[in-house]
């Protein structure tokens, strides 16, 4: 078993990965029983250098995709702008690759890793196939625990329900922990419109809230920002020193300004990592303990739950807990795994079960298994396209591989381009702890989108033309054969748009003297007298 994991680490690889912002690998600060450095929180994924901010180059933070209503997102355009900010791009790529390597080390430290993935995948498949039963069981158990249970068909209904709960209690302020579901629902935006103040308690999410930007990553929402960007945001919104980007200073400043809100908030909200049908309880996994603050401090607590978060029994939770943080950050477990079951004395607990397109997705033969997702972001961390484009380039709540396969279910036209923002290399599928065949679903989406004419007519026209030439040997040979030069046919195969996008960034291949076909005809056929 150990030899397999040894082979994963190419010799000398650690030394070669140099990021100017990354301190030396020999950080002695925290070590576990085996002497290995503990990597239990996102902050540990990338030791920060002590280089003062003033001495480092400043680079404005690239912003995300341009959103123009339902018009298809131009991910390539936004990615190009991200790449034009090399300090950001490099830090982003290396930080996420570091998480991928930590994931490998953690996963390969467990001999039964692949069995766990299979088990998790099957538990999810079973639950999703019997979702109605488990949802009813969950509701009954939660009610028996004294919880108020609500059902929301979509994001708008979720927002209205939460607003109504708050209104009934005269609540005006809400602290919440990070939840992708509430991002989906446009919750913060809605609540701002009805005069309710929301404070995000996850540090990364708080940064994004203060900067009025969406999260770019589902586990580390501000991973696309450098510390200098954060210093700039805090200086602008919290009045801190713009030149001090010391991570402890920044985190402390945020904490100092947020804590009073936590203590005085009228209501608290969390998302949900797992909802256990037999116990009616909600489980959250965090490293900052902020879900506990959000859930346990105010007298009114609300949990928003995507209906796909169900698992049947508490005993299955261990399978997912073992996979989740190892896949996400390479740590054995998150700092906090919190179970919320019923209201504390003198408080009220609400759970909102949200569909928002999930039951429709459950009916999609090729795509329903995307509902197994436990939002670990391993597929994003490993995705070479994501690491080089930034999560905001996708212009959607969900970026990266998982985004490519679920975003079109929310809006086919707007997200029709996203399944093409991939090389379909398959690494995402291999890291996915619940074994979603992500890259095959990307491939399947392309087919659906082409069949329904959601891809540009120009692109489809090119493919039709290419297909016509390739299906007729004579036409194909004529296309290449005129000067026996590949450059004749190159416009069709490689640069079939007039802008020569290949040659802008790469040297063109040289056209060989003759094709293989011509060589074969000259060298081999004349000997046998065979005619071509």
């Amino acid at each position, binding site marked *: 078993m150990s030899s*397999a994991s040894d082979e994963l680490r190419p010799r000398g690889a650690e030394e070669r990965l140099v990021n100017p912002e990354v301190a030396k690998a020999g950080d002695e600060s925290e070590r576990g029983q085996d002497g290995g450095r503990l990597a239990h929180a996102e902050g540990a994924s990338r030791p920060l250098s002590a280089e003062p901010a003033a001495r480092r180059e400043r680079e404005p933070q690239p912003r995300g995709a341009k959103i123009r209503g339902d018009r298809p997102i131009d991910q390539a355009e936004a990615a190009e702008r991200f790449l034009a900010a090399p300090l950001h791009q490099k830090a982003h790529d290396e930080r996420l690759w570091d998480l991928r390597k930590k994931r*490998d080390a953690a996963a390969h430290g467990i001999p039964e890793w692949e069995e766990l993935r299979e088990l998790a995948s099957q538990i999810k498949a079973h639950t999703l196939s019997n979702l109605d039963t488990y949802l009813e069981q969950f509701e009954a158990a939660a009610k028996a625990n004294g919880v108020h249970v609500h059902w929301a068909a979509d994001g708008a209904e979720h927002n209205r329900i939460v607003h109504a709960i708050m209104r009934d209690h005269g609540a005006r302020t809400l602290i919440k922990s990070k939840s992708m579901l509430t991002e989906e629902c446009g919750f913060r935006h809605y609540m701002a419109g009805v005069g309710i103040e929301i404070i995000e308690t996850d540090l990364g999410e708080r940064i994004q809230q203060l900067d009025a930007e969406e999260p770019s990553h589902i586990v580390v929402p501000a991973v696309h920002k450098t510390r200098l960007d954060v210093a700039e945001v805090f200086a602008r919104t919290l009045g801190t020193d713009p030149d001090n980007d010391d991570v402890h200073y920044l985190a402390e400043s945020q904490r100092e300004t947020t804590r009073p809100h936590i203590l005085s908030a009228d209501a608290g909200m969390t998302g949900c990592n797992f909802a256990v049908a037999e116990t009616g309880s909600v489980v959250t996994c965090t490293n900052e303990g902020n879900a506990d603050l959000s859930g346990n401090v105010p007298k009114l607590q609300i949990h928003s739950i995507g209906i796909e978060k169900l698992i049947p029994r508490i005993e299955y939770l261990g399978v997912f807990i073992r996979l989740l943080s190892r896949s996400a950050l390479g740590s054995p477990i998150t700092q906090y795994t919190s179970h919320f079951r019923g209201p504390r004395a003198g408080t009220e607990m609400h759970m909102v079960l949200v569909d928002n397109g999930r039951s429709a997705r459950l009916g999609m033969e090729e795509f329903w298994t995307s509902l197994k997702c436990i939002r670990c972001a391993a597929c994003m961390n490993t995705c070479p396209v994501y690491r080089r484009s930034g999560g905001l380039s996708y212009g959607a709540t969900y970026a990266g591989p998982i985004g490519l396969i679920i975003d079109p279910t929310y809006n086919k036209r707007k997200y029709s381009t996203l*399944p*093409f923002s991939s*090389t379909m290399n398959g690494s995402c599928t*291999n890291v996915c702890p619940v074994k979603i065949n992500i890259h095959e679903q990307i491939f399947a989406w392309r087919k659906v989108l082409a069949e329904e004419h959601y891809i540009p007519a120009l692109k489809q026209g090119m493919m039709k033309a290419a297909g016509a030439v390739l299906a*007729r040997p004579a036409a194909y040979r004529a296309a290449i054969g005129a000067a026996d030069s590949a450059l004749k046919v190159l416009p069709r195969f490689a640069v079939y*748009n007039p802008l020569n996008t290949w040659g802008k960034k*790469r040297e063109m291949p040289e056209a060989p003297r003759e094709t293989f076909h011509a060589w*074969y005809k000259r060298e081999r056929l004349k000997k046998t007298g065979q005619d071509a």
Partner: protein
Amino acid sequence: MRVGLFVPCYVDAFEPEVGIATLELLERFGLDVSYPFDQTCCGQPMTNTGCHAEAAATEALFVKNFTGFDYVVAPSGSCVHQVREHLTAIPQTPEVKAVRERTFELVEFLHDVLKVEAFPWASFPHRVAYHANCNALRGIGHARPSEIQKPFFSKPLDILRKVEGIEIVDLARPDECCGFGGTFSVFEPAVSAKMGYDKVADQSRAGAAYVVSADSSCLMHQKGCAERLGMPLKFIHIAQVLNGAAA
């Protein structure tokens, strides 16, 4: 054993030496190798773009050309992956199924079918970075990808290590995609090129003089990137190395 040689359109047009090396290499093992003259392409450019209907006639032509062979061999993991996994735009008759099942990528054909022990005519005394095409690696199972918890194996490295003098260097990101991705390289040129730049930088830092791969398409992309960056890396297909290219 009757072998049909499939020379993918990219190889035919841009890298004829790879086709020649593949043919000569197979003939060294005494195989009866034919090159069906009406072949063009496997259909991959269309299916990868979602255009299956547009690929159907090309797929049908592929099957017509390669019916009746014991094996179809191609020097491309990516095209073989297309044939094996995605040649589905036409009705799956027994004929179509037979061709799909009998189509092998060169390395796996040498490794699994011929079980070649030695390449005595070949010598390649150079530091080599091996590039795993993603379809070859994760699609048709050339090797154990770094994500998976299984004992390590690699068919291309097993085969390459039988060549005298070769030295394989270790990459920091051994199986990271190089960004070619077929039409991705054209429709997402900035990200594609950046992935290519990072790939050749990794190979260069590892001290490679040559990059060897079982797929010409990745090599063509990487070569274009290395030349643009002014890196003195050289790129060569595994068929050429195994056939005894002097380099």
